[in-house]
């Protein structure tokens, strides 16, 4: 075994490993020689570079990166005079790796990478890319390579990358990875510090990572480690529970907003005319399609303002769907006021017609929407709770709709008329109110609200001809529970149903949630058949 060659190799290896400690520059010639050497030398060169990379100067890293890239892409030639970088694989001449001088590469050997060597070289390239990548995409790619072999990456590399990183998201990822690497470090103090650091930024992933450490032998052997881990874990669990609670609340609120938007129009129509509008879901769908139409118009006419299409769609969708509603009222429902069950079938026929009309004219595929910045992404607030903009948009939209509708109902002559007819149609007619006209306008208002719901849904749901049927059962439940014709009742019921759905869902599944909510509503109606907030009226 006293092979002098082997001893020499080991010495070289040692030398390379000790280089970073003294922050010496990269021995470029040795590095190039390693890459030109046999498989063991290549691995040694690449791994040595990874170990040293945390302290190397940028130009050294760039040099190493160029060489490693050439090696991986078979553009490295190794004549006796020294490594050559070729322009393309098999080129007749290339640049000297060290001096940059052009030399012929004829007859020179081009090293080929084995499987193990390739892994080492890829890791080294990833390290270089992470540290010197010109743009975040390149650095993300480098990090992705390192992630697979995170145990072999020294902490210094990740620390340096984190400190130099300008992209916030990438910085977070690097931090997480650095913690993960530190958690499995052999140094106990460093591990404890890492536990504290991980616990300081709680998330579900951090919790899982810490929980996994309980199986570590040190947990039973080292009391200090155990105390640190238990404390960290408790802290993270608490924070994650709070964050999850916030997320449930937020989701419930956004679901309730959508329910409210879908049900508000229904409640007005039902309260006023006793008409169950089974086409309400399709009116929502029309609102979404109107939004799509506005988006396409913006794309053609004013591409620069495309991001504003959602806001521009608000009045358009309202007006378009309100017109459709008024047409339906004038053509069909007007004749059916005395026969509510027949008007139910008639609106079902309208919904069938609308779904198939859209299906035939536009197609059945989901519509593609541009997502402006104000409805995409979100801001992480606490632990795993991310406040997503699209849901916030829906919540804000619903709140605005609520305020506007209340203002219309409470503060305008039309609202006065609607309330009068809702409370006592005959008396209102005797006082000279044109009840039929009020009906028509109210139906238009209710339909328009469905159109608005369609706008709010565009950033959240998939928009297709059949989307309306998904809302109809839930929103009717809300109307029945809330009490016919009461907007506040609708709001409370929407919050209740939405909250109950979101609360029960994680425990027992989406279907069970629906079943429980339905049973709850039926039981509730045993006590109050008129719903939560019954409008008082003569019968």
């Amino acid at each position: 075994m006293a092979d002098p060659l082997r001893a020499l190799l080991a010495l070289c290896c040692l030398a390379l490993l000790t280089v970073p400690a003294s922050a010496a520059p990269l021995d470029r010639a040795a590095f190039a020689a390693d890459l030109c050497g046999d498989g063991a030398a290549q691995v040694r060169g690449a791994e040595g570079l990874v170990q040293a990379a945390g302290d190397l100067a940028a130009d050294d890293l760039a040099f190493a990166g160029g060489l490693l890239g050439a090696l991986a892409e078979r553009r490295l030639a190794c004549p006796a005079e020294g490594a050559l970088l070729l322009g393309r694989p098999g080129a007749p001449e290339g640049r000297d790796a060290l001096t940059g001088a052009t030399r012929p590469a004829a007859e020179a050997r081009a090293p080929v990478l084995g499987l193990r060597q390739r892994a080492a070289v890829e890791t080294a390239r990833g390290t270089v890319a992470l540290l010197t990548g010109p743009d975040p995409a390149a650095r993300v790619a480098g990090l992705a390579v390192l992630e697979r072999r995170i145990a072999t990456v020294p902490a210094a590399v990740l620390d340096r990358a984190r400190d130099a990183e300008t992209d916030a998201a990438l910085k977070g990822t690097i931090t997480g990875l650095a913690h993960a690497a530190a958690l499995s470090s052999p140094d106990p103090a460093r591990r404890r510090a890492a536990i504290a650091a991980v616990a300081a930024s709680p998330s579900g992933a951090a919790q899982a990572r810490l929980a996994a450490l309980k199986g570590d032998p040190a947990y039973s052997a080292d009391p200090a480690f155990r105390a640190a881990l238990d404390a960290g874990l408790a802290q993270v669990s608490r924070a994650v529970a709070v964050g999850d609670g916030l997320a449930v609340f937020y989701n419930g609120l956004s679901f309730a907003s959508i329910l409210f938007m879908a049900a508000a129009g229904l409640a007005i129509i039902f309260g006023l005319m006793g008409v169950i509008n089974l086409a309400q879901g399709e009116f929502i769908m029309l609102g979404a399609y109107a939004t799509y139409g506005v988006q396409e118009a913006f794309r053609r006419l004013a591409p620069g303002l495309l991001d504003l299409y959602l806001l521009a769609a608000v009045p358009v969708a309202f007006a378009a769907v309100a017109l459709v509603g008024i047409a339906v009222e004038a053509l069909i429902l007007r004749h059916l006021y005395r026969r509510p069950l027949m008007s139910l079938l008639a609106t079902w026929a309208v919904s069938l017609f609308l779904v198939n009309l859209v299906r035939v004219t536009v197609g059945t595929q989901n519509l593609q929407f541009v997502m402006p910045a104000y409805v995409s992404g979100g801001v992480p607030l606490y632990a795993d709770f991310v406040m997503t903009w699209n849901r916030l948009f829906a919540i804000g939209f619903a709140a605005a709709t609520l305020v506007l509708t209340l203002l219309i109902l409470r503060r305008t002559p039309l609202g006065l008329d609607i309330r009068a007819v809702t409370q006592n149609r005959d008396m209102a007619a005797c006082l000279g109110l044109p009840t039929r006209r009020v009906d028509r306008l109210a139906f238009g208002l209710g339909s328009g609200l469905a159109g608005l719901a369609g706008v709010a849904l565009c950033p959240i749901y998939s928009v297709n001809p059949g989307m309306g049927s998904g809302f109809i059962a839930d929103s009717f439940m809300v109307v029945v529970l809330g009490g016919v014709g009461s907007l506040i009742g609708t709001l409370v019921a929407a919050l209740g149903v939405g909250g109950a759905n979101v609360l029960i869902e994680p425990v027992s599944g989406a279907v069970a949630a629906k079943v429980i909510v339905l049973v709850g509503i039926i039981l509730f109606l045993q006590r109050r058949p008129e719903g939560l907030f019954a409008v008082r009226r003569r019968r």
Partner: protein
Amino acid sequence: MNGAVQTALVAPAGPARRAVRDPLVAGLVGLCLAAAAAILVAPPAPYLVNALGQLAAFAILAVSLDLVWGYLGILSLGHGLFFAIGGYVCAMHLLAHGAAVTGVLPDFVQFMGWKSLPAYWAGLDHGAYAFVLALALAGLVAFVFGLASFRSRVNGVYFSIISQALVYVAMLLMYRNDTGLGGNNGMTGFPLLFGWPMGSPGVVTGLAVAALLTLAVVLAGTRLLVGSTVGRRMLACRDDETRLRTLGYSTTRLKLGIWCLSAMIAALAGILYVPQVGIINPRVLAPDLSIEIAVWVAIGGLGRLGGAVIGAILVNGLKFWLSAAMPEAWPFILSGLVLLVVLVLPNGLLDLVGWRLRPTWLRGAR
């Protein structure tokens, strides 16, 4: 004013015996018997026989809804639930029977990786037990739901909405794969019916004849019922429930009884339907399908048992024909038909043949 059917309908003025002499129902019963005899004597092509049997099953379903909607003013938008209960229990019987005879477990059991049928399938390979179970289950579900609704005076459109939610929830439930009822694929591949291979001409004919005979019996039976004192009480309840209650009748009991009967008739239709199509899946619980039942009744003519039969056969016959011939146009035709009927012919197609001699519906404020 319970939000019920507001059109004036013929009150059974004379004695019950006269009311039974309903030429429309009598004609339809005769037609059913004649069709059954014709199938037995000179069988046409099997697919025609099968289509006829399916139409008869739909007609039974329509009659069951007309009984509560036309005569009690209760519009159920969830009758598909009872139809599905009958259908599912029937499918369970067919699969259990097949497994007992052939020893091969149904596909979905193997798919779920189970070693045997779930425990609650026990005994379902006996036809009589399955039959009783299907009817009892439908009756029980109807009883619980009806009791909860009628006791608290939930009626009119409220009842319709809640029944629709019920069927919708049932659909979600059946889409789950772990219920032991086939999940979203449903149940299919029935091998045997009482030991006879499924799909053989004899079985097809037998099923169609059974469906036609059942339709005749259901039609005659319900006609007798609505012509009786109970029937008159039903009409009274429909037209003014409060007054009937004030007069000392328990409208809750009346409504509950008829409601459960209607549910069991619907289950009967499901039992007859499933072996004829050879499959059941949660699609039969889609709210749309339950609304369609109401559409058949409305198109045929509400509150005339014969009208329900005519509506069911007409709409489904058209559907069989058109959804194959021009699938794109069928929904438009159906919606147009519904709008035409509710706007122009408030009492359904029976108006066309001038069946209703009293023209009160034209003045028909209520």
